[in-house]
């Protein structure tokens, strides 16, 4: 079990609003980490800091022994190895499904057009949408869009995948399809950091669950430890709330 990512003393402030108050987190290779916590606790901010969509205020983020939070790093190359999936999919609305997936590999000269389209088709197959290659983004349902978004993120062959509430904008009947794709990915050994409220997914897939509240990690451990034997009072409150909804 080798270390893939280590976050040390990560602080993020927006003006006077101290959102992340010193996060320390280590993720190992092939590990699936699920982040849970109440709304506004800083989960998205933490996730977005990991590929510097949010610029960290201080602290370090070491991936494969490189501190990507330091100034000299070419963040674009770093991001090629970190896939990200957003709550609202963010598919490029000016491009077709296939073009969405092919854009980055072709633009960044990783692949030729032919290679990219072959790979896009393969990826679409793995998310169960091989028929939608030429479809417009607008013609897809939310669940389909999110699966395309996952395929798009995978097209750059990343080592790490970040998911920010990938299913919370979906109609309930579509959640399953997306989670299935994610489970599949986890099975194949992808290192994943997932912010989600899907407790079933967390229990089944996560190697570790991390509870974030008020910009801090208050407790972490196996799903069993966190869900069945929560120690922290606020975690207990939180679990009560979501399980009783």
């Amino acid at each position: 079990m080798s270390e893939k990512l280590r976050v040390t003393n990560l602080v993020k402030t927006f003006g006077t609003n101290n959102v992340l108050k010193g996060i320390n987190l280590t993720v190992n290779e092939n590990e699936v980490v699920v982040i849970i916590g109440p709304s506004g606790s800083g989960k998205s901010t933490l996730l977005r800091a990991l590929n510097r969509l949010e610029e960290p205020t201080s602290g370090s983020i070491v991936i494969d022994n490189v501190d990507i939070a330091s100034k000299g790093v070419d963040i674009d190359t770093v991001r090629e190895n970190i896939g990200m999936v957003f709550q609202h999919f963010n598919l490029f609305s000016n491009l077709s499904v296939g073009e969405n997936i092919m854009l980055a590999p072709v633009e960044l000269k990783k692949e030729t057009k032919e290679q990219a389209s072959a790979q896009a088709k393969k990826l679409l197959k793995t998310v169960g949408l091989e028929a939608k290659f030429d479809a417009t983004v607008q013609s897809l349902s939310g669940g389909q869009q999110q699966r395309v978004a996952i395929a798009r993120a995978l097209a750059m062959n990343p080592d790490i995948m970040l998911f920010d509430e990938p299913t919370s904008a979906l109609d309930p009947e579509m959640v399953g399809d997306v989670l299935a794709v994610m489970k599949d990915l986890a099975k194949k050994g992808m290192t994943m950091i997932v912010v989600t409220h899907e407790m079933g997914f967390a229990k089944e897939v996560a190697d570790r669950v991390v509870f974030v509240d008020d910009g801090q990690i208050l407790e972490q451990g196996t799903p069993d430890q966190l869900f069945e034997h929560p120690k922290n009072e606020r975690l207990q409150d939180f679990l009560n709330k979501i399980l009783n909804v």
Partner: protein
Amino acid sequence: MKQKVFKFLGWVALLFGLFFCLVQSTVTAQAKTYQIGTDVTYPPFEFANKQNKYVGIDIDIMNAVAKEEGFKVNIKPVGFNAAVQSVQSGQLDGVIAGMTITPERKAKFDFGTPYYKTGVVMAVGKNSDIKSFKQLKGKRVALKTGTAAADYANSIKKKYGFKTVTFDDSNNMYEDVTTGNSVACFEDQPVMQYGIKQGLKLKIVSSPANTGWYGFAVKKGQNTELRKKFNQGLKKIQANGTYDKIVGKYLGNKTNPKVKGKTFTIGTNVTFPPFEFANKHNKYVGIDMDLIRAIANEQGFKVKIKPVGFNAAVQAVESGQLDGVISGMSITNERKAKFDFSQPYFMSGVVMAVGKNSKITKLSQLKGKRVAIKTGTSAADYANSIKKKYGFHTVTFDDSNNMYQDVTTGNSFACFEDHPVMKYAIKQGTKLKIVTKPAESAPYGFAVKKGHNQALLAAFNTGLKDLKASGTYDKIKAKYLGTDDNGSVAKTAADDAGSRSFFGLIKQNQGALLSGLSETMWLTVVSIFFATIFGVIVGLLGVVPSKFSNGLSSTLIYIFRGMPLLVLALFIYTGIPSLTGTKIPAFIAGVVTLTFNEGAYIAAFVKGGIEAVDPGQMEAARSLGLPFGKSMRRVILPQGIRIMIPSFINQFIITLKDTSILSIIGLLELTQTGKIIIARNLEGFKVWTIVAVMYLIIITLLTWLSNWVQRRTKV
């Protein structure tokens, strides 16, 4: 007049004025003032300098002598013949005008001690090998008619076997030699010397022949005292070195660009008949136009007439965009502070005109009423100066037709206008009548920027003098104003009565209107092209992740969107050249103006369009590792442009309409074309209708195009 100077120049002028009065009064206290005639322009003996003050060897000698002997002279540059005649008739006391002492003249005048020795010299091209008369055999020699030099050349022509060709004017003669048509010319020595110092590409190769002397003259048997004083003073200034200094000053090492062969751009009003207006063939004619062309022709330079409107012309001359202005411009003291004027070429005066059926006949009836005036005219100055006294208020227009119209429609009760202009307009059918006698009679002058284009000014003066002498000047005047008060002008009013219908007007002005339209389209297309480039760059600067660029973008948008287009146009056309000293052609100034103004609007909606794209699109692109530029190009811009397209097309239409504002800098686009046609035929309503319909047709076509493009991009 003096009061105005005080008002405008404040204390400086006051001090100058006091100083001037002081000098005047101390001198006049013990000294007699003699009236001395001289030539208008006979460099280096007499000519107006940069400050429009008469200088030259004659003038300086006369002044030096007067100072030495303690008398005062009033030098009148009335022209050689007039001066000589006036001395004979006793109106002037003496004449100093490069006047050669001859036995004939001695019969009628008493000459003072000769003060300058002159003679005829031969001049050849700078690189010519000719050194002696003998080398002229079989060759062509240029002469100027009626000069002593020509007489001399003719007297030796047989002996040396050369042919002669005569010119009416020195410049043409010189040019014939510089171009190589003739191999030599003959000229008075000091004149030739001065010309060469001023840049003529000739050299003097013979010693002065047929020498004679210039003398100061008074009427025979009269003014003996003056003549004695002149002789005494001359002796003194020759002894103390002043005389040599004076001669050296003019024949020493001064340079001045020559006008010959040069092209000068001359500004004039859009419409100020009978001084300037476009005729049926849209060629600019009128007293000013004919005069400046005749002078240019005579003096051997070329003119480019720019009918940009009076104010624009004046400003453009001030800023150096134009070389001179001839625009029925009254010579006033205020203007003299900024311009050097030529000799007056026309005397005008201000009259009041009222509607044909108006009962107003006196200034006193204007109390409480509205009076129309035209900006920057001396008629306006006059109206303003009496407005308090008679209790009327004024409304200002930029062009005469609008002013007349304001009176004919009854919005204003009267207008003030220069007499010849009003007269001409009424003869052309303007429904007004003149009810006052000309007041504030004012001389019109040709003007250049103070201290600039002196060669042009001198050429104008020389040319004017020549035209007056040859009768051309009177002919020009008669052509527009008639020989008597009911001259030939009435004819032009009647001649196109048949073509006053809409279709007649369209047919008659088809060419002008279409060329105006094409100028408008060109301006629009070229401007929108550059405006788009400018706008997209500035718009993008507004969205890149750099505080400096964002600030720059906002500032540019703020400045160019905040400045009225009219002000921007005038600033670029007349302001920039004042700062940099380089001229900008009107078309380029127009394009630059629109590029900045329309570009600022484009920048604003480019920025807005990009900002309207969901920020999640940018984040998704960046999270894949795409750099900012690539994300912008492949993801954000394609979506933003779709949002911008309607605004782009809208801006295109706005630009087309905004080109009409550029008529202010004299661009002959559709609006300006309309103004000019109306200036001629005074059919305001009909012509503006035609112009308006033309704009609407073009804009309708553009709107269709825009709808089509929008439909296509929506799919």
